[in-house]
């Protein structure tokens, strides 16, 4: 009788868990990249331009895992018809 509601509730919870857990590693990685970039350009100010380009690309690559988590979370929401 409550099977549909149960599926919806589990889908909401699991998509939240997927997004939250999946973002942790990506966030740590992006933070470390930014910290290293600041340290590098503080030590060597004329390298700031080239470093910025590399930093943005590295950040985009590091955020890929969070994107996978987002895709999984959205799929959980849309495929189960909760949203």
């Amino acid at each position, binding site marked *: 009788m409550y099977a549909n509601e149960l599926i919806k509730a589990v889908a909401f919870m699991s998509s939240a868990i997927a997004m939250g857990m999946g973002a942790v590693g990506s966030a740590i990685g992006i933070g470390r990249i930014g910290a290293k970039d600041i340290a590098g350009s503080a030590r060597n100010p004329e390298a700031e331009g080239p470093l910025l380009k590399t930093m*943005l*690309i590295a950040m*985009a*690559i590091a*955020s*890929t895992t969070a*994107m*996978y988590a*987002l*895709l999984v979370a*959205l799929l959980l929401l*849309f495929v189960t*018809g909760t*949203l």
Partner: protein
Amino acid sequence: MSGIGEIATKTFYVPGLETNLTYNPQTMAFTGVVMFGILLLAFVVVKSKGKKLSRIFTVFELLYKAFDDMAEEAMHGAGRKFTPLVFTIFVFVLFSNWLGVIPGMQSPTNDLNTCLALGILVFIIAHTSAIMKKGFRKYIKSYFEPFFFFLPMNIIGEVGKLVSHSFRLFGNIFAGAIIFALVGPVVIKTFNAIGLPTYSATPAILGTYLAAQAFFGLFVGTIQALVFALLALTYIAILREE
């Protein structure tokens, strides 16, 4: 609120092949728009070449020069012949990503098929150029590096490159499209929750929508186009290494 992120598909029956073919008319139409825009821009840029110091020509020359330098840096000596490919991919992905900013338009890269097609294109070009550069024996031998039993891992790594390359672009643009679609309803619900009427939410919706467009459409779109082109270059360069 159903249907966010869904892409219209059409299926038709092919009598000769006895199969059903599915195609996405929206994606095809917007890819056509992007191609037409790029053609128009290329026409304008090439037309302006004769006049001395045309502004648009200088901008594109600088862009092309930057990509040429990057290709030269990645592949010592032979990089110049991959510059047109990488720059074409960059311009196509950039215009595709920016098309989603215009209201009523949808990015062709918002469809996984476009991203996967570009990824497969880069995959085939990288492997073919590696075979042509190193010869077939050395190419096969590179799969058994550093030890013999690393073969499955190397194969999975190659397929993983393709998948991550296309899914990175798709995921970013898809997330942006979802956020554009969610901005309006979320702001209206917030205004209703604190007791304000729906019509008073209009300026807030406009502001949030513009901010979201500027960040997720223009900024993320540019970065992802650059990342996609640079990764294509890197994958080709890695496979060509002896």
